């Protein structure tokens, strides 16, 4: 069943890529929307059959692949990957549906989007380290082309920068994976087998540091973040949505799955430093967001700040904090996708994202009142206003991290406070006041432009009101990350005393 999520979009990507030229962009968009909708339905069907009370992997699949390399086609789904899988399927549908109906080279575009889906889905499902690495690398290629071909004016620069950074990220992850297999002395890259291997703390530490930098580039955390604002600014709106909504989550997913899963002791040892790193990254991202004049850059730096909260929660490594990390990944995926989508609509209509040129877009007659209202909602959700998913995720993070790392947590809370500052500055400039003379003749916004944003907003509100619908998938299973395999769970007190020593 899990293979269907990988092979259906793969086959569809090949068929679309070599599809007839007689079909136009709109028709290819419809076909791709149908394919991605099938994947979403399939994901929902899997979620319905998924038993949250059972810890460990479900729907496992195993096919021996390259024996001499220790590489197997090994898939599985647990409470950590299921929410992200759903997020990926949902955002792929929305991204495809909101793509321009008049794209150049539509076959290549939709094939790449579906291949991107394959890479991300595969990475979330892979239970073999090398298989994960292959999928992780696979998603880089379509994303590179999506930015390089359909991006903005500096797309070449942004795409190359993205490629270099993520290639380095991949190399570091591969080094860490090879290292762990080598020191564990296993013959395969099987995740479960490697988790049970006893690796001394001193060996774990360098491997974890390499892994942290590798995934830290992907998330990204300060100071490995510089590729992200460029990539976002140059990427088209659907690609930005996927990039912020799902692709960044590969980094945090990797940290939780492999950083904590394979190097728990080293993780606990480094945890105080990780919390400080999270605080620095959050404050840096928020401070940069305040200074931006491009709406998309504001949202991009906001992403850096908010993804740092996941690191803070992961550093705490309690059951609650890990659940909070998962919630924050889902929350940020929905909110950032919404914000990038809305910024994309503003750009599409006003032909600029410069906050100094835009003004009064909430004007009910000639502005973008729906888009502006949803932007305010998105900003409120991002700032952690109660009643929306952002509040649940951030409250859980701060609640679970504060007893362990009070100062970094407080600094991150300042970061979330700054979210309100930079978004209100942006909203005040762009949406309030008299409509700027430069943009008084905006074309109308169609319902097709509004519906994706409305769908995302509904998820943000519903999951904010009924957070159990989000957490129930992960809650019982998250614990297994820190307690399984007879290894002693490093308690909060032990970790604090280790830090003091």
């Amino acid at each position, binding site marked *: 069943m899990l293979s269907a999520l990988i092979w259906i979009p793969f086959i569809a990507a090949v068929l679309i890529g070599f599809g007839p030229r007689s079909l136009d962009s709109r028709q290819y968009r419809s076909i791709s929307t149908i394919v991605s909708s099938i994947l979403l339905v399939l994901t929902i069907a899997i979620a319905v059959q998924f038993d949250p009370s059972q810890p460990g992997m479900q729907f496992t699949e195993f096919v021996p692949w390259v024996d001499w390399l220790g590489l197997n086609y090994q898939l599985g789904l647990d409470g950590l990957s299921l929410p992200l899988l759903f997020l990926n399927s949902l955002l792929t549908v929305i991204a495809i549906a909101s793509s321009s109906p008049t794209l150049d080279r539509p076959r290549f575009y939709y094939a790449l989007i579906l291949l991107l889906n394959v890479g991300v889905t595969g990475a979330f499902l892979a239970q073999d380290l090398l298989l994960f690495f292959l999928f992780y690398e696979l998603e880089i290629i379509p994303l590179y082309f999506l930015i390089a071909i359909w991006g903005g004016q500096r797309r070449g620069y942004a795409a190359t920068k993205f490629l270099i950074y993520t290639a380095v990220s991949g190399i570091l992850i591969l080094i860490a994976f090879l290292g762990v297999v080598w020191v564990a002395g296993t013959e395969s890259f099987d995740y479960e087998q490697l988790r049970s291997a006893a690796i001394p703390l001193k060996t774990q530490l360098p491997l974890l540091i390499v892994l942290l930098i590798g995934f830290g580039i992907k998330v990204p955390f300060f100071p490995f973040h510089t590729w992200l604002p460029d990539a976002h600014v140059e990427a088209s709106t659907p690609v930005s949505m996927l990039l912020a909504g799902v692709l960044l989550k590969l980094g945090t997913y990797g940290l939780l799955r492999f950083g904590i899963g394979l190097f728990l002791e080293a993780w606990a040892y480094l945890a105080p430093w990780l919390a400080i790193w999270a605080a620095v990254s959050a404050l840096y991202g928020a401070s940069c967001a305040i200074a931006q004049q491009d709406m998309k850059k504001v949202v991009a730096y906001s992403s850096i700040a908010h993804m740092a909260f996941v690191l803070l929660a992961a550093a705490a490594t309690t059951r609650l904090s890990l659940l909070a990390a998962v919630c924050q990944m889902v929350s940020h995926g929905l909110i950032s996708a919404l914000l990038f989508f809305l910024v994309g609509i503003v750009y599409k209509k006003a032909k600029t994202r410069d906050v100094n040129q835009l003004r*009064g877009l909430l*004007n*009910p*007659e*000639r502005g973008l009142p729906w888009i502006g209202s949803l932007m305010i909602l998105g900003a409120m959700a991002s700032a952690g206003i109660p009643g929306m998913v952002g509040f649940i995720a951030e409250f859980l993070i701060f609640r679970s991290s504060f007893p362990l790392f009070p100062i970094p947590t407080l600094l991150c809370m300042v970061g979330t406070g700054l979210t309100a500052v930079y978004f209100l500055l942006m909203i005040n400039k762009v949406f*309030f*006041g*008299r*409509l700027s003379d430069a943009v*008084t*003749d*905006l*074309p*109308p916004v169609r319902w097709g432009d509004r519906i994706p944003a409305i769908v995302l907003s509904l998820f943000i509100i519903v999951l904010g009101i009924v957070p159990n619908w989000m957490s129930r998938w992960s809650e019982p299973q998250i614990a297994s990350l820190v307690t399984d395999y007879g290894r002693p769970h490093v308690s909060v007190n032990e970790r604090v005393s280790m830090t003091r020593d």
Partner: protein
Amino acid sequence: MLSADKIQPSKHPLAEYVHRLESGEALLKDSPENVLEVVGILKSYGIVLDAYSRNLIYISKNQFLVFFPFFKYFNGDVNFQKLFRHWWHDRINFEYAEYCMKAMFWHGGGGLDSYVDTPEFKQLAEAAIQAKFKNNIFILGLHKLFPEFLPEQVRMMSYYSALGQFWRVMSDMFMSLSDRYDRGEIKTIPQVVQHILDGLVADASKPITYAVKIKGKTYDILPKSAGLTFLMDTAVPYVEAVFFRGTPFPGTISYNAQAYQIPLYQSDFTYGALYADPLPIGGAGIPPTQLMQDMRHFIPEYLHAVFRKSKRNEDDLRVQICQTFQKSMFCVTTAAIKGLAPYPLETTDLEQQQANRQYLETWMNRLITSRVENVNG
């Protein structure tokens, strides 16, 4: 070289408009599109004015000194259907008519403003008050304590009536303009202006009177003997109050009077219809969302066709109505300027031309910050 007996070109910043008026044209550029828009919008305005006029007169007659006139917008016909429609807001916004009445009342001007402060008016008002509250010791006691309150209400009622009578004439005038356009008699903007001017002149001396019936007896409030007439006592103060001065609105733009963002003198106000920003931001001028919302129900199909051609189709209908309405208001203003001019504007007599020039430049001084250039842009 210009001859000595020919008037020199104006050096006013709005000299173009001075010359336009002197040559018999209007403030609004003449074009078939402008004629279509102006006549179309005035038709819908005429229908709305008819409703406003009827309601203002109804209030002045039937809600006289009613302290809580809950159903004043229902014209005496209160039923659930009308009540739900009222709450649903898909109705005529009579509030706009009251806004105009209050603007006139506040800015004053003309004979009506003077008359309501005369002892004669106070006497007539007092008679009506005594009749209305006969045997009502409580209200009469309060009236003794606060003797200015009830007469002020009567003054306001007088303005309700006066504006209602003014709009009655204007409504008919705009409807007949539309009829003439439909018959092919109106083809240019100067003809539109002339139609309005003729209407104003024809009714210039029409008396403005007001009387209320209390317990079967009629009480004069504005008797015919007061000599109040349509043109000088309602039309001119109306143009001054609603077209030019208006009132600053609260909205996304906040005016801070202490920071001198509002002129010290009412006569310097420029918040009227000729200055209004068509974008509904609560800025200067008429409250567009009310009047425009009313007019949109009665736009003739040929004007809808024009609006539909715009980039946003009719998404921004109220803004388009406001822009078109402003065009029409510059035609009405042209008629008022022409009607009040000391000499015919097309005169060839140099002295008369000079007097007219001075007169026109005084008007233009007031229009410098108006949207006259926007509507002609």
